[in-house]
């Protein structure tokens, strides 16, 4: 349920790196005469290219402007991915009833789950939760920090067999998918 931009960054940066290497090799190749002996002495903007652009200005510049706009939009999307929070905000849950509908705040549900985890399992030091979805299918992102000497398997078992079923019943949700992130409390830090 996390949405870190790390993979996206890596992919885009690899593409940019390969493009930069290709441009670098191409420029050095032209300067060294790899593509023809006469090329090192040619101007950067050779007259044939300038003529081609001038002849086709009626479509070249609109296309260039459109490409620039597309690049701008993609770059803004990339920038937005950096600024988003790593976990999505909780969404409210709407439960349909016979005579109307009941809206349960996602943050309230998440807080209830967090409190249940911290109070019902002794070795849990702190927890945080996010919920997203609807009353048919709900995704729960649960991060639990336990004492350094805690039995992780036991904590996990209690969460899976007791806390989550209790939460599922209370939230009246048919299907809950949970992403559990277990962490040991960093040595020397004590809270609770």
């Amino acid at each position, binding site marked *: 349920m996390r949405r870190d931009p790390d993979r996206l960054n890596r992919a885009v940066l690899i593409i940019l790196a390969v493009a930069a290497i290709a441009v670098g090799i191409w420029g050095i190749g032209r300067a060294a005469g790899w593509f023809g002996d006469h090329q090192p002495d040619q*101007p950067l903007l050779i007259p044939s290219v300038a003529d081609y652009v001038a002849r086709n200005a009626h479509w070249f510049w609109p296309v260039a402007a459109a490409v620039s706009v597309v690049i701008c939009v993609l770059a803004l999307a990339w920038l937005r991915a950096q600024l988003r929070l790593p976990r999505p905000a909780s969404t409210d849950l709407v439960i349909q009833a016979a005579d109307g509908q009941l809206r349960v705040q996602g943050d309230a549900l998440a807080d209830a789950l967090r409190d249940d985890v911290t109070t019902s399992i002794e070795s849990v030091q702190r927890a945080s939760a996010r919920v997203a979805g609807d009353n048919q299918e709900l995704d729960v992102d649960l991060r639990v920090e336990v004492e350094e000497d805690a039995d992780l398997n036991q904590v*996990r078992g209690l969460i899976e067999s007791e806390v989550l079923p209790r939460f599922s019943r209370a939230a009246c949700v048919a299907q809950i998918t949970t992403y559990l992130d277990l962490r040991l409390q960093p040595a020397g830090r004590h809270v609770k």
Partner: protein
Amino acid sequence: MRLVDRLLATLLAGALAAISAIIAIEIIIGYYFDRDPWLLPWDRWYRRSQELTWSDRSVVITFILIGVAGMLLLALQLWRRPPLSLPLEDTTRDVHTDISRRSLEQALTRAALSVDGVSGAHVRSRRRRVTVHATTQRRQPGDLRDRVNASTAGVLSGLRLQDQPRLAVDVRSRQVSRAEV
């Protein structure tokens, strides 16, 4: 490394968005409205690009710098970095559990330190390999390596990681100097 990527990505994305927007505006006001350049002196660049040749020193240096920057960026991206968290085997269909890499290292460090005779321990985990570096005050470690191995392997298998990494244990005797003795 991820922080470096995040900073680079923010800077590059911002620069790319700003430059491409300015270029689009320059094209529109230059081509459609026949106006002078707004921010980019493209008319000067146009004249300069007709004067400069491919073999000019400044041009060659620019392309070398672009190529080197690309190679450095590629090397940075291809560098294998340890995962932030490792998935555990699912025990129920609807619960997917991860353990943070630091917590795994912490649990294994504790397991190593719990062995009698171990005075210090440090664990490094990668995607497919976990290395436990333990130190002892003993001059002869004896079977300490086997015992550290058994202790850490027990914790590691108990966690039931989806991809069980290979465990390597290294026990070193701490050299006690005469002054300390």
